[in-house]
């Protein structure tokens, strides 16, 4: 985690705070976290607004004694902190000067507040500044040796190391630059070898071949950029990684959903107003039991081994306004259908209000994603690493089926299993789907 969104302040300026008090909620990559204060005092100044994105370690508020002057600290927080130690600005140094000084409160796991400041200060001179006024050339011994070897004049190089020190990579870059800006390169302004964007180039070529397609270029004002939330970025990163690194393949089959629908109706009759069982709850139970029967699919690729899990934790993809989360039903194979139904409802509700704790969204061994309620017939899902599979559930459809040579009305459901081929081969996945289908088509077995 590098940054978070400060979602809500639960204290306002002027409030007294003591260690352990909840002062704000922070949205992290995964879940909303409580920000509990560790110091005692009065919240003198809030430095960030609700909804602001805050870098880890950046100051978010100033606490101190009531009525203290915070201007120096505010300037320090704003300017990245060139100001002297806060102690010096303590308005009324009473008995304990260190305690009397207002403190810049940083986030829980944050490094000392002066750390980023020091970094910023250190970064400045390195940004291609000329060597210090003493006239001494700063270069690592290796850079010097290399410069002699390659015939590079160190005085022409800008150092990228601390304090502008010239290091090995700077000399090598200069040596590369020297060969590239040679005569030949000068004659052909952008030789193909230098292009780092083959796609862009290919596109340009096609453009020429098609004798210039009229370009209706979009101009500023033709779009709006909606800032990506942390969750959005996390989803983008995770899914890109999963689709890129996990060799997916897909198995689809449709199964007779009529017995399950009848079973579900009976269960809900029995439950009355004590709860409700959804198709999804039954599917979760069936998936969990199928994994218990075939643990080969309850597994993960570990590079040098296939890790088979002894417990069956089912991740359930839940859509929430800004994205999706996958809360986990632990030991789903051992839980009753009613218990699963109640747990999933609770998890889904809290997911929507972003109230899930991080342990509730981690540790799944297999995931179920269901779009049946949107009348999607079938779809495929991206695996949630390190799991080896995910099952995508389509809606229960009224379709004509052939029964005893006659076309009759039936109910069918199509499921698609995405498999990590490193762990699950085609025949294994197919066998697992057969076990799953048997359970769904004879739903009473789910209650055994």
């Amino acid at each position, binding site marked *: 985690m590098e940054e978070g969104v400060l979602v809500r302040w639960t204290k306002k300026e002027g409030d007294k705070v003591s260690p352990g008090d909840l002062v704000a909620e922070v949205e992290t990559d995964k879940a909303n976290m409580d920000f509990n204060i560790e110091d005692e005092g009065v919240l003198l100044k809030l430095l960030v607004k609700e909804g602001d994105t805050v870098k880890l370690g950046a100051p978010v508020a100033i606490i101190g004694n009531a009525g203290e002057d915070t201007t120096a600290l505010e300037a320090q927080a704003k300017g990245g902190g060139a100001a002297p130690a806060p102690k010096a600005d303590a308005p009324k140094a009473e008995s304990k000067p260190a305690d009397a000084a207002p403190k810049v409160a940083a986030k829980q796991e944050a490094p000392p507040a002066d750390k980023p400041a020091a970094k910023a200060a250190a970064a400045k001179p390195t940004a291609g500044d000329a060597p210090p006024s003493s006239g001494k050339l700063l270069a*690592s*011994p*290796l*850079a*010097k*040796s290399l410069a002699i070897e390659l015939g590079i004049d160190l005085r022409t190089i800008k150092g*990228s*190391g*601390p304090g502008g020190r010239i*290091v*090995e*990579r700077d000399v090598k870059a200069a040596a590369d630059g020297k060969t590239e800006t040679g005569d030949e390169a000068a004659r052909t302004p952008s030789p193909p070898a230098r292009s780092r964007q083959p796609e862009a180039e290919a596109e340009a070529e096609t453009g020429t071949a098609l004798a210039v397609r009229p370009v209706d270029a979009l101009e500023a004002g033709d779009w709006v950029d909606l800032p990506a939330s942390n969750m959005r970025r996390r989803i983008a990163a995770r899914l890109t990684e999963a689709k890129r690194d996990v060799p997916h393949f897909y198995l689809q089959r449709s199964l007779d959903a009529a017995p399950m629908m009848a079973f579900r109706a009976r269960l809900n009759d029995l439950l009355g107003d004590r709860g409700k069982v959804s198709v999804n709850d039954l599917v979760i139970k069936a998936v969990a039991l199928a994994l218990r029967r075939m643990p080969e699919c309850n597994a993960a690729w570990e590079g040098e081994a296939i890790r088979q899990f002894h417990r069956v934790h089912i991740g359930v993809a839940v859509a929430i306004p800004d994205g999706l989360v996958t809360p986990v039903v632990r030991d789903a194979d051992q839980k009753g259908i009613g218990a699963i139904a109640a747990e999933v409802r609770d998890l889904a509700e809290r997911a929507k209000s972003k109230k899930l704790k991080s342990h509730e969204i981690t540790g799944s061994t297999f995931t179920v994603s269901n779009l049946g309620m949107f009348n999607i017939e079938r779809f495929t899902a991206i695996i949630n690493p390190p799991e080896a599979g995910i099952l995508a559930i389509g809606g229960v459809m009224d379709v004509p089926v052939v029964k005893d040579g006659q076309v009759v009305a039936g109910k069918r459901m199509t499921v698609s299993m995405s498999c990590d081929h490193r762990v699950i081969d085609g025949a294994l996945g197919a066998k697992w789907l057969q076990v799953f289908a048997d359970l769904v088509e004879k739903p009473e077995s789910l209650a055994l």
Partner: protein
Amino acid sequence: MAVISYREALNQAMREEMERDENVFIMGEEVGHYNGAYKVTQGLLQRFSERRVIDAPIAEMGFAGIGIGAAMVGLRPIIEFMTFNFSLVAIDQIVNNAAKIYQMSGGQYHIPIVFRGPGGPAVQVGSQHSQSLESYYAHVPGLKVVMPSTAADAKGLLKSAIRDDNPVVFIEGETLYNTTWEVPDVAPGSPSELIPIGKADVKRTGKDITLIAWSKMVWTCLDASKVLAEQGIECEVVDPRTLRPLDVETLATSVKKTGRCVIVEVGWPVAGFGAEVAYQMQKHCMDVLDAPIERVTSDDVPMPYAKNLELEVQPQVADVVAAVKRALYME
């Protein structure tokens, strides 16, 4: 090659040397009837009797001194400290007698003695029992200091230590006893059964940076190397195995190849042995260094008892990775 534990390797080394030379005996707290506090002397009492496997009272100064006296008259004692933290009680014997008598007697007395036992932090044994004291002994001329990281090194080096005519401080990794490593099957008596004292070993080859570490930290560096390899950085991990005498040549050869060096030790930072290694490396590799030599050490505090803090204080994989990135100007 057989894969055996570090503990078993040490046991084999002592057993084989006791079979080979009847002047070798072992003495220490609980080494006999209890088979050793860490079971390193398992079975030795049954095999060699109470004449050669001697349970000592809780008096380190006393049995260290008896060992030195025995060495003066021709025996080859192995003195086991239950942990090297307890050697502090006997340090006067080690520093002022064992390390000095050869020189002060004008070469009349050799002191062929091994002081061995576990050192370095274990798990939640408190600040007095979690110390890495190798610098104390590496400081002293007249002593050799050996700290093996693997079962193979432990066996070959302990045999060399027992046969050495000078006092050897042999510090074992307290958390390494259960680690396993391939140990060559060599018949006792063959010259390859010994690993010479004072010879470093390259535990992993790489071209980008040299990590120097001994004992448990070798394992931390190997783990860090895996993490860094995924990011395209190839670390060379060099284990000196012996701190005194130090194999400067092998270490410097590696640093000259990579141009960068991180020294990782579980001891404290101030006057830790890594400071000496850093001095030697800058002296021998000045013209090829691309970055200041980095050190990763435990924090400069007595060891906390709380488990989370105990881990936090010691060098972790992430600390090594960060130091490597600093030395590569990747931060």
